[in-house]
């Protein structure tokens, strides 16, 4: 039930990265701009052909897996909130069922309920606020009932209330046994909400482990090159400069 990268390399972006992710947990991928976070996430989602190494889901190489099988297991949420046509919310969420070849109302309604957007189902995509759009797009992933949710900066462009709400939804998914992998810029969110943090620096693994260790003050100073310190209690940390 693991999603594992074995010594993957990709041009200048990733160099010899290995990690094995466990279902039922939230893993945060952190790192400075250009560290290769999004590339790692896309490689884990099977969307990026790596130069060397393999990505395996339950021991099976993703490259050898039919696209539809992979799509049923791995849900991917990109950073861009791109919606090209002004379609109804429900049909957007129904796209999540595409890998299963159905439009079953059950999982679609459950996803809409889970994100408290059942009342938006008949609305048009372009009438939604940024926070509503983010929840609709996550609902699209949930509707596919994937065993893995891979999301690139799902909290970007959201206010703090929507950020915390989205993190709660992702925690609920992890509690149901889904493996959640998030690219996060906000180190405090990673520290307080993830079970495990992977720190990338210039395409290599700089740290990997429990939040308090992987985001240790010295790691942050070394990777991000800024003097910082953590304040507060575990799970309620804040990062301050100096």
């Amino acid at each position: 039930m693991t999603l594992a990268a074995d010594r993957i390399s990709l041009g200048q972006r990733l160099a010899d990265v290995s990690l094995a992710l466990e279902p039922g947990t939230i893993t945060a991928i952190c790192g400075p701009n250009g560290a290769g976070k999004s590339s790692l996430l896309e490689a884990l989602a099977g969307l990026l052909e790596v130069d060397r190494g393999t990505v395996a889901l339950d021991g099976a190489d993703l490259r050898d897996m039919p696209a539809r099988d992979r799509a049923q297991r791995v849900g991917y949420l990109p950073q861009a909130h791109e919606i090209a046509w002004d379609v109804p919310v429900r049909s957007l969420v129904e796209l999540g069922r595409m890998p299963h070849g159905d439009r079953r109302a059950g999982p679609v309604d459950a996803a809409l309920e889970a994100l408290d957007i059942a009342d938006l189902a008949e609305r048009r995509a372009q009438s939604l606020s940024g926070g509503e759009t983010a929840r609709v797009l996550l609902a699209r992933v949930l509707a596919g009932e994937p065993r893995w949710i891979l999301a690139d900066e799902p909290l970007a462009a959201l206010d703090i209330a929507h950020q915390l709400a989205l993190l709660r939804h992702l925690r609920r998914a992890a509690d149901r046994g889904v493996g959640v992998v998030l690219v996060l810029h906000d180190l405090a969110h990673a520290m307080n909400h993830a079970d495990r943090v992977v720190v990338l620096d210039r395409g290599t693994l700089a740290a990997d482990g429990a939040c308090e260790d992987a985001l240790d003050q010295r790691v942050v100073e070394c990777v991000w090159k800024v003097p910082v310190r953590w304040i507060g209690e575990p799970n309620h940390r804040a990062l301050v400069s100096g």
Partner: protein
Amino acid sequence: MNRATAVFAGLLVIALPLSLLAGRVWLDPAATPNAALILAELRLPRALLAIVVGAGLGASGAAMQGYLRNPLADPGLFGIAPGAALGAVAALWFGYATAPWLLPAFALLGAAGAMALLAAIAGRTGGIALFTLAGLMVASLAGALTALAISMAPNAFAMSEIVLWLNGALTDRSWREVSLVTPLVAGGVLLLWRAGRALDALTLGEAVARSLGVNTGRLLWLLIAGVGLTVGASVAVAGIIGFVGLIVPHLVRPLTDRRPSQVIVPSALAGALLVLVADSAVRVLPLVTELRLGIALSLLGAPFFLWLLLRMRRGLA
């Protein structure tokens, strides 16, 4: 069947008999001499050809807009129509057009050449940006070669034939053209219709579509083949008829939920309706010579395009 399909199918059923009667001389089946002959040999094949050509152009416009996620996309932009036109122009240039099958055959060859070039450049990666650029390149190459053919025409007659043909028309067409173009357009529309669900997924971008299991390379092949068959066959029998693929999806979209898959079939029907009505209108207009259909649709299409741009600008403002 969605609402748009029902609406445009209904309008088409009303427009077809009217179109059969319309012309410089309005046909009265009871009174006009040889009415049955005129209907069977002139008006009916021409009307059916208008329907088939319009359906192909409408469906390919809807599919291209869906694929490029751009409401301003027109299938003519992507090299296949100019490629087909170049083939036809070559037939006229060499004087082969006297044999009835040769001109459409050359046009289809031209379309196939453009498709092959597009597939060779963009087919391997399946990327949308590369496809667009490759299409523009093929279109401008075919356009330049067509201009070269006109400027080096062997005689004034060939030059006027070429220019006239490029303007697009359904005048003097027969059952032969109908039987040539119908299976090709039907096959093309079927391929485009099959691409519908993948185009829906593309609404959320290429990466999401791939994560949902869409094979973007296969989708590109479907589109090149679908647009190639519909547009190539249309140009082969009617010359260049622009703007239909651009305009029609905009008429259809408000009647649908705007998913690309829901726009393709009604766009085929609306395209059929538009070309049928426009071709009837050019027959009825009291001009010395019949206005060419391609020119008429461009005269109609350009202001529509402007209106679309202004509306988009208002939307952005």
